[in-house]
C-alpha cells in the first residue's frame, strides 16, 4: 500500500461580507514547497472554532458556495472555480495539486447571499509528500483521553512510559471521538502536523453508514515528541472523550 510521508500545516482565512474574494495569506513554512493536496475545513458539527483566535468556523453547508482558485509559482492557473466542498475532510480521493503554489495569487471567492462576517475557514496544506511502499502496520497502541470542558491536554500524560521508551515510529493515527478536536503533532526532528482536525483521523470501524476514511491518517515515519504534542477541543466548553490509536 502506498502512503505519504508529509507535513501538514494550515492557514486561516477570515471572512467578511464586503470583499467576496479572499486571498490566501502568505506562509513561510510551505512557501516554495511542493503542495500535495489541500483540505478545507468548515464547521461540520456546529460550534467549532479556530485554534488560533477562537473565531467561529463557517457552517459546512455554506462551503458549497465557495470556489477556489490556485495559481502556481509560474503564475499559471492550476485550479479554477473548484467548488470548496471538493476539499472537505472526508474526501478519500482528494483532488491533488502537485505543484508549488503562489499563495498571494491564490484565493477563495464566495458567491452566496448569507452573512459570513466574523467567521473563518481553515485551509490545511499537505506538502513535501513522498510516496513510499508500505503496509499499514498491525501493531497498535490505544489510549483513552477525556478532556474536561475548557481545557486542553498534553499527550505524553496519557502515553505510558513503556510506549514512549521503545522509541516507536508512528506510521498512522486513528481516532474515535464524541466531540471533534485538534491534535497539534510535533516530531523530534521538527517535522510538524499542525492542528490536525479529528475528522482526518476518523477511520472506518466496522459497519458504518457515515462518511469515513478508508485508512488511518498516515503520517509516514513520525517520531512523535509526545511532550510537545497537544490536543485541543474544537468546541469550547464541551467535554471531549477520545480513543486515540497509534499505528507503529
Amino acid at each position, binding site marked *: 500500500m502506498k502512503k505519504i510521508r508529509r507535513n501538514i500545516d494550515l492557514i486561516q482565512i477570515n471572512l467578511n461580507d464586503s470583499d467576496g474574494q479572499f486571498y490566501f495569506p502568505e506562509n513561510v513554512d510551505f512557501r516554495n514547497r511542493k503542495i500535495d493536496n489541500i483540505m478545507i475545513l468548515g464547521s461540520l458539527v456546529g460550534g467549532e472554532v479556530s485554534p488560533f483566535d477562537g473565531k467561529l468556523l463557517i457552517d459546512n453547508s455554506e462551503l*458549497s458556495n465557495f470556489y477556489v482558485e490556485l495559481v502556481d509559482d509560474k503564475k499559471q492557473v492550476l485550479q479554477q472555480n473548484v467548488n470548496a466542498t471538493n476539499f472537505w475532510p472526508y*474526501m*478519500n*480521493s482528494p483532488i*491533488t495539486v502537485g505543484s508549488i503554489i503562489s499563495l498571494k495569487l491564490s484565493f477563495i471567492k464566495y458567491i*452566496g447571499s448569507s452573512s459570513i462576517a466574523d467567521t473563518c475557514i481553515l485551509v490545511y496544506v499537505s506538502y513535501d509528500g513522498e510516496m513510499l511502499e508500505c503496509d499499514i502496520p498491525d501493531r497498535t497502541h490505544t489510549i483513552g483521553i477525556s478532556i474536561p470542558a475548557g481545557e486542553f491536554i498534553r499527550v505524553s500524560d496519557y502515553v505510558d512510559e513503556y510506549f514512549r521508551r521503545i522509541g516507536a515510529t508512528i506510521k498512522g493515527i486513528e481516532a474515535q471521538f464524541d466531540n471533534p478536536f485538534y491534535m497539534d503533532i510535533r516530531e523530534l526532528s521538527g517535522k510538524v502536523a499542525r492542528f490536525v482536525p479529528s475528522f482526518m483521523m476518523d477511520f472506518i470501524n466496522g459497519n458504518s453508514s457515515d*462518511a469515513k476514511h478508508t485508512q488511518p491518517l498516515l503520517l509516514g515515519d513520525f517520531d512523535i515528541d509526545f511532550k510537545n504534542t497537544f490536543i485541543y477541543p474544537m468546541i469550547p466548553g464541551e467535554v471531549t472523550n477520545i480513543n486515540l490509536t497509534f499505528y507503529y
Partner: protein
Amino acid sequence: MQTKVSGAKTVIVPITGLGKNYFPFVEYLKDRYIKYVDCILMSTLPGAGDAITTTTGAFVNLAIQAGNTYFVSGEPLDRYDIEQNLGVRKPINRKMSLQNSFINVTNSALVGKSVVLVFWYDLPEYSQRNRTTETIVDSFEVSLVQNSGRNQFPDNRTMVGKRFRNLYLTYPTTTPTYADGITDVQAKNIYVTFQKGNYCVLDQLPLPLLYQIGLLEGLSFANIVFDFTYSFAFVGGGGTLTGYAGKSIFLNAVYENQ
C-alpha cells in the same frame, strides 16, 4: 474506484413480473471488458416508465460471456447500490453476456418498474496512459434551458481536446456565473451523455454518480476525451417536471496539463 475506467453505459432493466427478469441485449456492451456495475435509485427514467424506489427483494445473476455459467448468483441488488455502499463499486473485471443475466425479483413492489444499472468498462483504444503527472482543475456549467429532454453542453473552448481524469459534481446554491445550481433531489432526474463524435463515452450516465463527496472510493477516468458540442444533459420525467429551466449543473473537471 481503484482502477481507471474508459466509459460507461446505462442499461435499463424492466421488471415485468416476479421471478426472472432478463437484461436486454446491448450490442455495444458485447465484448466489452466490464469493470464495475452500479445500481442507482433515480426518481425518473430517461424514457417512459418508473424507476424502482428500493433494492429490497431483488437478486442479481450475472452470466459469463459464453452465457452458460453464472459468476454471480443470487447476489442482493443492495450490493450494487452506490449510495448504500458509499461508492464501493461491485467489481466485475470480465466480459459478460447481458442477455443471459437476470434479476430475480421476490418483491411485488418492484413489478412494473425498471432498474437503472450502469456498466463501467475499459476501452484501451480510447483510454490512454498518462502523458504527464500534472493536472489542471477547471469548471464548466451546463445551463438547463428546458424542463425535459436534451440540454446541450456549452461550447467550451478552454477544454477542447483535453484528456479528462475526473469529473466532480457539487450542488452550490449559486454558481460562479450567478445562476442557481441544481439540488441533489433534482439531480436524480438528470442523465448526462458525454460524446466524442458519434461515440458515447459516458452514455446516459445518472448525474448523481459524479457526486463523489463523502464516498469511500472515488471515480477515476483513464484520460477520456469528449466534445462539448455533442454532449448533453437529459432531464427525465417526460415533461412532468418543473423548476429545471434556468438552473445550472456545476461540474469541476480534472484534465492533463499539456
